[in-house]
Structure formats: C-alpha cells, structure tokens
C-alpha cells in the first residue's frame, strides 16, 4: 500500500504512431476498394495485336463503353456507367442518349471502347455510328477521341 502511494501520479501518453499506421492502412484499403469498385472495367479478353502500336492511357477523363458478349461472340448487352443496354434499336438509342449526356457534361473526355476479341464486327459498328452521332448531337462539329482498348503485349493473360 505504501509503495503504491509513493509511486506518484500516473503519466498518461497517447501513442500517435500506431494511430497514423492504422490511418494509412485505411487510406490504402479504401483507395484499392474504390479502384475495384469502378465498374467501368468489365473483365474481358481484349484484342492483343502484335506488335502493337497501342499507347498507354493518359490521365484524361474517360467515358468507357463495354461490350458484354457470350462465347459465340454475340454481344448480349452494352454496359455504360453501371447501366446495361440491350442490343436492339431502342437499347442502342438509349445508349446514344446516355453517351450524348456524358459528352455534353465532359466534352474533353475520351471514349474508350472495350470489346472482347471474339465479338463480331456487326455488333461494334452500330455503336461506333452512335458514338459519332452522340458527339455531334452533344456539340456540333465535336471530334470524338475514340480509344480502342487492347491488351498490352507484355501482359501475361
């Protein structure tokens, strides 16, 4: 008892370093989760031309259009901004309206077209037409910076 009384006041210290560690961990975690959460990128088997003339992406705003296809190379839906558009004239028209709105909101954006390597061209062509029309509808005379997504040569998959 005596020894307890003679110890004096207890010194309380806040350990900041583990707090900073945890904060960093959370920042990293949410940064990664937000990257994964971007549904712009659907897992696709992109074309792999070799040797390629493709270039790495720039840090420019982008509008990403994904072709969701089956094994026979038939596009079942177009995915744009978390929405799926069916492959019929009304679906394509809705997609065109959505792209028009996006280009109007961000005229400098690049349009990234991502399609599986086995997709038949008959599915791609109407969308190329609609993207061009959407750009002109959004801003007359607007030049669409279309980017065709390909797999890098050094990519293992």
């Amino acid at each position: 008892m005596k020894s307890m009384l003679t110890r004096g006041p207890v010194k309380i210290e806040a350990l900041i370093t583990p707090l900073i560690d945890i904060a960093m961990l959370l920042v990293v975690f949410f940064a990664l989760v937000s990257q994964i959460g971007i549904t712009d990128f659907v897992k696709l088997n992109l074309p792999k031309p070799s040797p390629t003339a493709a270039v790495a992406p720039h840090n420019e705003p982008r509008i990403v259009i994904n072709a969701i296809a089956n094994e026979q190379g038939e596009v079942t839906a177009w995915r744009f901004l978390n929405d799926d558009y069916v492959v019929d004239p009304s679906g394509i028209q809705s997609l065109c309206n959505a792209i028009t709105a996006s280009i109007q909101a961000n005229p400098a954006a690049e349009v990234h077209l991502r399609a599986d390597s086995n997709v038949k061209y008959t599915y791609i062509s109407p969308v190329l037409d609609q993207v061009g029309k959407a750009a002109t509808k959004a801003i007359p005379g607007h030049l669409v910076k279309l980017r065709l997504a390909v797999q890098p040569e050094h990519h293992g998959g």
Partner: protein
Amino acid sequence: MGEAAFLAAALDQLAHGTGPVETIAQIRDDKLANKRAARRANRGIKLNVIPMIDVTFFLLVFFVCANKTLDREEFLRTDLSQRGAAVVSPNSLALDEPPLRIELLRIGQHTKIKILAPMAQPDTFEQLTAVLNSKRYSTENPTGLFPADQPIELAPAKDVPWDDAVSAFNGLVRAGYQQIHFAGPQ
C-alpha cells in the same frame, strides 16, 4: 603526501602484488564512464525506425497495386469526326479525298484482307503493314503513292472478329497512316 613519497609507496605496494597502478587505472575508468553517462544523458533525440518502415511498406504496397491496376490495358487512338459528320452530311463517310478502302472478309475461320487498289494483296496483318508502308509517301520514300494523312476506310465484314478488325487497324497505324476510320459492316 609528497609525490616522491607517493611513488615510493606505490612501488612498494606493487612489489607486494597490489598497488596504486590499479587504483589509478580504476580512477581513469570511472572518469571515462562518467563522461560517457553524461554524454548519453545529454542526448535527447531518438530515431524511431519501425514506424518509418511501416509507412514505407504501406506506400510500396499502394504503388505496386496502383501500378498493376493502371497498367493492364493500352489503347489505339482514332477519332470519329467523319462518322460524327453523319448528322450534318447525308453521307456518313463523306471525306475530302476518296479514301483507300480495305475490306476484311471472313472465309471459314480465316480473315482475308482485300485492298481495293491495284497493289499486292497481303495475306497477314504483318504483310498489310509492309505493303502499305511501302506505298506511303515520305522523304525516304518519294515514290510512295499515299501521304500519311491519306484517309483509309477499314471495312470489316459482319462476322469478322473484333480481334482481326483491331489487328488490321493496328497494322495501318504501324504503317504510318493517321486517318483510319471504320466503315459500316458490308
């Protein structure tokens, strides 16, 4: 005690096995130890290396992951200005110069390349690059037929896979042409 007497006593003690030499050495050691202790006490700065290593590893992991995420695809650049003109012009492919048309036809499981111009017809996309590169006008190739900004219309058939359409496009870019456009399906 005088110095001579001290030395005499010391020599005497040394002769008997114990002596002032030890004592002097001890005093010297004590002084050094005290000096070291005082020096240590004066040092107030400590370097915590472990949190630094933690943070470094976090940053390393972050950049490795970010690099993997960003490095997974590349892009072939084109523009849709001509197709965009479809709303204004009755012909969606209206170009200032007549374009050089290249058709991709699907025969069985093979894609055939057909250049609609009197020149050697390529069998592969590599050959397409070589043939059209040899026809591109430049200071190194003054006999070339087409300038680099010659409009080229790439017209894949309906059932041509996107991989082949992109490979043909890639081959034309590699041949040095700048205005390549996709036509509607045949």
